[in-house]
């Protein structure tokens, strides 16, 4: 899943990006309001983490501008402003969640995961496709009774496919949601990781879990 952090306090921006990347998210960061708006308008982020007091354009104006252009991406406001008026204003302008600094990193993670699930109409934190089970909160995967170990990138790819289970997902979609803006990888790397994933989650003799839809992309599970 791909996130955008618009936060001008560098130590916080750095630590958030590091922590979220380690959790398997693809994270883009910026400390400037104008740049943040440009990032948000140019990419398909699953969640945008937005500070309010920013140089250039403040967070609320970014949000206003963003929603006025019809963008539906989830926005989580992360700010030091803690009054009821600030919260109400932020949420009324179209934010999906509001978290006041300082915060517990685990809570931020949980909120981001909840927003991601909401984005894909998935309320259950445990996704099951045939005998494949993905625990979204703990990022653990089982095939039947056997637990499967994946790298962060492999997990990110599987989670995205699982969120869109039964749908055909293009390489570009995968690339946009799993890779960061500054990533040097090309979209061909998606095919490579699909290969890795197949090896780990599919069993010899068993049916395919990840289907290749020729010319269109990939699909996890059976078509809906």
């Amino acid at each position, binding site marked *: 899943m791909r996130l955008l952090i618009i936060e*001008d*306090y*560098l*130590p*916080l921006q*750095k*630590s*958030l990006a*590091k*922590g979220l990347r*380690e959790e398997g998210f693809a994270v883009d960061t910026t*400390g400037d*309001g104008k740049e943040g708006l440009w990032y948000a308008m140019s990419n398909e982020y699953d969640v945008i983490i937005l*500070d309010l*007091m*920013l*140089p250039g354009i*403040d967070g609320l104006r970014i949000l206003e501008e963003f929603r006025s252009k019809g963008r539906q991406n989830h926005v989580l406001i992360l700010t*030091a*402003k*803690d009054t009821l008026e600030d919260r109400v204003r932020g949420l009324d302008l179209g934010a999906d969640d509001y978290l*006041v*600094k*300082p*915060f*517990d*990193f*685990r809570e931020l993670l949980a909120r981001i995961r909840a927003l991601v699930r909401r984005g894909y109409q998935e309320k259950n934190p445990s996704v099951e496709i045939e005998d494949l089970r993905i625990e979204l909160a703990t990022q653990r995967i089982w095939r039947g009774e056997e637990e499967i170990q994946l790298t962060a990138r492999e997990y990110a790819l599987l989670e995205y496919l699982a969120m869109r289970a039964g749908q055909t997902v293009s390489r570009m979609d995968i690339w946009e949601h799993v890779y960061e803006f500054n990533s040097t990888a090309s979209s061909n790397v998606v095919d490579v990781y699909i290969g890795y994933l197949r090896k780990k989650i599919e069993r010899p003799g068993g049916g395919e879990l990840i289907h290749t839809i020729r010319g269109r992309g990939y699909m996890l599970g059976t078509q809906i």
Partner: protein
Amino acid sequence: MMRSLRDRLLFGMILGMMLLLLVFSVVIYTLIRRTLFQQFDNSLGLTAQMLAAAARYETYGEDIRIGFHDKIIPEFEGAQRPAYYQFWAADGRVLLRSPSLGGGDLACFRGDGDEAVFRGFRLRNGQPGRAVGLEFRPGQDKRDTGKDESNPGQQAVTLVVAQSVADLNLHLRSVRELLIIASVGTITLSFLVASFVVREGLSPFKFLAADIAAISEDDLTTRISTEPMPTEMVPVKDTLNDLLCRLQDSFSRERRFTANVAHELRTPLAGMRSTLEVTLRRIRNLDEYRFSLSDCLAIAKNMQAMMDNLLALAHLDAHEMTFERDRIHLAEMMDACWEPYLDIAVDRNIVFDNQLDRQMACESDAKGLSIVLSNLLENAAEYTEESGKVWTTGRQLDGSVEITIANTGCTLTDEQIAHVFDCFWRGDSSRTDTGVHCGLGLALVERVVKALGGSAGVELQEEGIFVVKLALPISRLSPVDRKKAEISEKTGKRKRRSKKFEKK
């Protein structure tokens, strides 16, 4: 001492009423007494005149006696309220006395000539009495001469007529008692009326107290609006409302300040917590721990800098900061204060031009002035655009030196400039530089300069040139000397004013 206003008013009113009644009663009683005695004396005088007119010489050979033609007035016969008279010849011989005297004598006295003289005296029975004495020349009885004529050659006779005043005193006693009863009654009635009037008069205090009690410390926007308010209490109401206004401002300022402090701390605290939590989420190598700890240390140092500034502001506001008196060469100090920002200036190609005269000096606190100059130069280094310029100038004025620190690249507006000395104010609302710049630097500068006896101001010149002007006294006075100087200045002003007035 009475603490209750009600008791004081009541006591005052009753005491006043009592004094008034006392004076009134004494005056009334005195007037009545005087009138009654005057009437009594008039009556006694008339009786004496009547007796004198009725008296005739009766000559029996060598013996002269006084006799009456008319019947004697019954009172002289020893009636219930007896009257007395007695006649004396010029040689002191008793010529005649009233039967009521029963052989006793009255005191003999008279006025000069025909004038009657009145006296008070005590009768033989112990009763108080009043007497009139006069001298006259009785006429000759016609039994002797055959005609009734006065005889100027005859001896003058002294007549004293007296009467008891016991009845009069009884009347006066009744008047006294009546006045006392009336006074006591009036005072009792006054007390009741005064109690009611005082209670009603002081009732606005109760309403005022209720209004004040209704004001909560959480909401100081309420004002006292008791209506109708007596005229005398309007200044009290206005003063209290004014006090509430000031309290509200003060509380709001305090709340804003606390909120600002909390707000300023939230972001660095979030940064530190996030860094630590992310680091502790897994086992890492030594370098990663070191980087995380370094980041946290940097955040902690910035937070400490902010706390130091806050503490300095608190000390300045409480007048707890002490200053020394040093001879300071301003150009040297300016160079020394710029030194920490040399690297930034070089990196951003900023030119620094210290145009201060090398000889320019003033007497001030080196530490305090260094805080001021460092803050201003740090801001200049931070906010001057790439390849911009920072320069300082100075000039000597009457008793002070004026230093200016100017820099190019200012993006602030005139409206924003007006707030630069406010605590926690920043031109940019972002918190990119949280901890390092939290809007306290210029507030601190202004307060320190003021504490050093100077003043600070800012102005925005054309093409984005931001200028800070500092006026510092050449000779810094000690607090005692400053107080003396202020007093002397005030006295001077007063004298100048009075001279002007005299000229007019």
